[in-house]
């Protein structure tokens, strides 16, 4: 190669490197997706170096997270965080804070992830990455174990209980507006609602959020969910937007925990074993 050609080659390399560099500075997300070798997940690297995954949660929502008598955070999400961290040979470091502070703390790098019964929010996908749902807290139709009700349309002509003012109440009224003939009966608390179904048999079915339903089942009450959720509220793990490696690791580990039966064991630990759904 002549000296002139070498000069051109060097100039070309500098120009290409400069363009890539400038593109990365100006459009880091787009460049990273087009040029995978530029992609670096500092969150995952830092977790590895630190040996700890900093998980933010608001310990005020049992059984997902609350403080025990000694002031330690316990619950479904705490156990899930520890189980995931164990698959990466790091420890989970729980950082407690208010629910509304969690996204800002994640953006500011104070925590690596949120594991706090956090509902999926498609408006935040430009700011954060989300895992697949690990629990759906949405609205269910629940019936006594021996009930013949199996579908939404089976509620026609039935006495259906709701918590007054709740999402179940709102959707029950919506079904009535849409022409379904069901008799809604309102109760003031979730406990009164469940009792009306199981103990007093004042109603034949209830519209109840899945957390309350699973808690009632955990208490040994004979009721089960039927049909698909009337409204879905999926809980997900939230990660920084640049944390592509972490997102992959969470996906793999959630699948692993599921295959090992650890997700089912986790749910049984905090909610009891679910009765068979139809």
């Amino acid at each position: 190669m002549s000296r002139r050609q070498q000069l051109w080659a060097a100039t070309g390399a500098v120009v290409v490197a400069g363009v890539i560099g400038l593109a990365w500075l100006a459009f880091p997300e787009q460049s990273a997706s087009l040029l995978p070798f530029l992609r670096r997940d500092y969150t995952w690297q830092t977790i590895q170096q630190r040996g700890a995954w900093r998980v933010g949660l608001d310990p005020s929502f049992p059984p997902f997270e609350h403080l025990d008598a000694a002031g330690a955070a316990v619950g479904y999400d705490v156990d899930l965080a520890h189980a995931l961290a164990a698959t990466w040979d790091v420890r989970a470091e729980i950082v407690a804070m208010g629910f509304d502070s969690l996204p800002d703390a994640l953006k500011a790098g104070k925590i690596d992830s949120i594991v706090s019964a956090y509902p999926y929010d498609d408006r935040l996908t430009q700011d954060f990455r989300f895992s697949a749902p690990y629990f759906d807290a949405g609205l269910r139709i629940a019936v006594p174990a021996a009930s013949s009700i199996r579908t939404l349309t089976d509620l026609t002509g039935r006495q259906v209980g709701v918590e007054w003012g709740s999402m179940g109440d709102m959707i029950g009224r919506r079904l009535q507006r849409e022409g379904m003939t069901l008799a809604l009966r309102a109760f003031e608390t979730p406990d009164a609602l469940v009792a009306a179904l199981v103990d007093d048999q004042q109603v034949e079915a209830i519209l109840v959020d899945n957390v309350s339903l699973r808690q009632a089942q955990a208490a040994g009450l004979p009721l089960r969910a039927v049909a698909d959720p009337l409204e879905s509220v999926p809980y997900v793990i939230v990660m920084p937007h640049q944390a592509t490696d972490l997102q992959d690791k969470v996906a793999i580990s959630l699948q692993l925990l599921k295959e090992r039966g650890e997700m089912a064991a986790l749910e049984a630990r905090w909610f009891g074993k679910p009765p068979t759904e139809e």
Partner: protein
Amino acid sequence: MLRNRRRLLLVIFVALAVMLIGVWALRQSLSHVPLGPQQTVHTINPKIGMHTRLTDEVEEQKIKRSLEMVRELGAPWVVEYFPWAYIEGEPGHYNWVHADQVVEHASRQGLTLIARLGFVPEWARPKDTTPLYLDEEHFVDFAKFAAVFVERYRGKVKHVIIWNEPNLALEWGYAPPDAGKYTALLRATYPLIKAAAPEVQVLAGALAPTLAPPGSEFGVDDLVFLQQMYDAGAAAYFDVLAIHAYGWHFDPDSPPDPAVVNFRRTELLRAIMVENGDAAKAAMITEGGWNDHPRWTRAVRPAQRITYTLRAYDIAQQEWPWLDALCLWVFRFPWDQNSYQDYFTFVRTDFEPKPIYTEVQRYAQGATP
């Protein structure tokens, strides 16, 4: 040849012009939302009110639907925010499009609109300050804007609130809250509003209920701040006290206590008015209510929220003759906030009524619980 080419160009030009005019006319007709017939509010309690949040609602049809639903609820009063920066982006240059839509639709629905004014344009504040920062040098600019506002909407807007929660550092542009300075703002604004529209009622205060201790960087206790306003001579520069009355997790009959934020804290603010010789003035609650978020520490169960809200409207009507309106936060957001704030609303972003909407509507129609 040249003449033909010119004629062809002329035809093309005329055709393009006709097309542009057609597209413009089509857009105008598509974007225009008819005001509809004049409506009136039917209610058994004329003090029922709602704080809407139409500031960032860009679709006129949704502005209209929100105000229709407020009227159908049985609420004659509505509070809405009109950010100064949105309207007077440059000194003396006004964009009234959105404000006109809100005012016209509220008027046509038969609602009495209380306009909250604030939010400083960039030209009226130093660099690197928030839109809630206003220094004394620019008080007169705000006052002029308020005067232009009430003049434009004369006959349709008869109540304006000067600023929001000036006892909080956040709402005072992260400057230390100062009742003397807020009073100076009232002193600058009140005469210009009265000169432009003497019948307009000027609401002051709208203080955040807070137990902030002395010296707090976050704010000043609202009871303390109101007394400081009177000490600074504020009485001569407002007609109605605006009050924020949140119940947090207390029921509406929890007794007033200076060390507690609850609904009847309103009575403590009223007592300060009376002690300062302002008993003849009315008060209005321009924000307040309860929240039914499943996990927010200041929330209540949905059933409690309904019961407390209905009881609060009864208290306003039966026990507080000096209160003209009880406007609760917040009717609807243009989009989900994805926080506890969503659980203050009465209808969802898609306009689906929550049970609390239906229950207040039944109450306003005189139904027994």
